């Protein structure tokens, strides 16, 4: 410390401009973070999870088919341990079922996953549904 003070005094002026710039940038980052959190705390919607599933792609694999899907949460709260079911129907009758579990689907966010099928899900009707979730 004494060294630094000595140096500063000899130089005859305060901290350099770059230090002011960095300090201001730091202040902006911290204030923006806190400001955004405060805004979300005061005006954010505390809506429960609301999940929508959509198929993004169906691919043929070595032993069958995979259905890649996106789970979108339009609520504000996070859904955890989300259990999903996919049912393949042909001529009104069930052909095959597949299940998947997603660890988390955060609020206003999306998570991707996949179902594995033996039969071609492109032939027939594919129904995706959420069977349940947990609030962390």
């Amino acid at each position, binding site marked *: 410390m004494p060294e630094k*003070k000595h140096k500063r005094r000899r130089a005859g002026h305060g901290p*350099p401009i770059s230090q002011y710039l960095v300090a201001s940038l730091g202040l902006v980052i*911290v204030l923006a*973070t*806190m400001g955004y959190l405060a805004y979300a705390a005061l005006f954010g919607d*505390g809506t429960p999870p609301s999940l929508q599933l959509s198929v993004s792609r169906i691919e043929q694999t070595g032993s069958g088919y995979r259905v890649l899907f996106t789970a979108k949460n339009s609520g504000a709260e*996070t859904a955890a341990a989300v259990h999903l079911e996919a049912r393949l129907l042909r001529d009104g009758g069930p052909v095959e079922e597949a299940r998947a579990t997603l660890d988390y689907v*955060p609020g206003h966010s999306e998570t991707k996953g996949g179902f594995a099928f033996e039969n071609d899900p492109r032939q027939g009707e594919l129904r995706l549904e959420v069977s349940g979730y947990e609030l962390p």
Partner: protein
Amino acid sequence: MSGRSRSRNVKFWITCSRGVGGALIFSLPLILTMEMWWLGFYVEPARLLLFLVLLLPTLYGLSYYSGFEPTADWTEDVLDALVAFAIGIVVSVVSLAIIAVLRVNMPVSELVGKVTLMAAPASFGAVLASKQLGQQSQQNRVSTEANGYGSELFIMAAGALFLSFSVAPTEEMVLIAHMMTPWHALLLALVSLVVMDAVVFGVGFRGQVARPPDTSFWRVFLNFTVVGYAIALLISAYVLWTFGRFEGMAPLPALMSTVVLAFPGALGAAISRLIV
């Protein structure tokens, strides 16, 4: 081999062994964490590469300021950084293989991912080993005070990186952010700032910095604590991004996980100013 060069070689190997000790101390908690093994197969190769590219200059800087060995010029610091990285790799390979996490029939990409991620904390430990565990005299240290503000910021960034990296892989970081409300996150951000200031100036740890008498509280708070916390936030966001934690996340949950991770990060930033 002359007697003198032999004794210098012996000294080098002793320093290396100390580096191995440091590497083990710093990386064992992560080596024994299963999320850390899983990261090996889902971290994106490009992000892993970027992380390694940034790790080497960080090791160089740490070597410069704290010292693997007392150094005379910059080439020695480069060598030291590389030696520390090599020690980190060797320590990760050996420890992961011993606990049967690494197996010969694994795909190369998975092996590389696991080992390089683990090598980061291990090589940090190796660099800091001689400083923390050795009998280095005070004169050999390059004083960060003499190097000014930039070096203080670097040291804080390195400390934040180390601590946030150590907890980022765990499932709990994600879970905590999901359990919190924005109020909790806001309070945590305030607590982080207070704790940072207390660690560096307030509570009298060894190596504590005295608040310069001729400067105001707010000036020091702004220049070091606030900037240090901003650095901890940026580093935490970077670490989370590297581990792919932001995939599909909206800004609010992403920011909240960043604030959660920046709490250990801020502590790391504050403590490193005292120990490095």
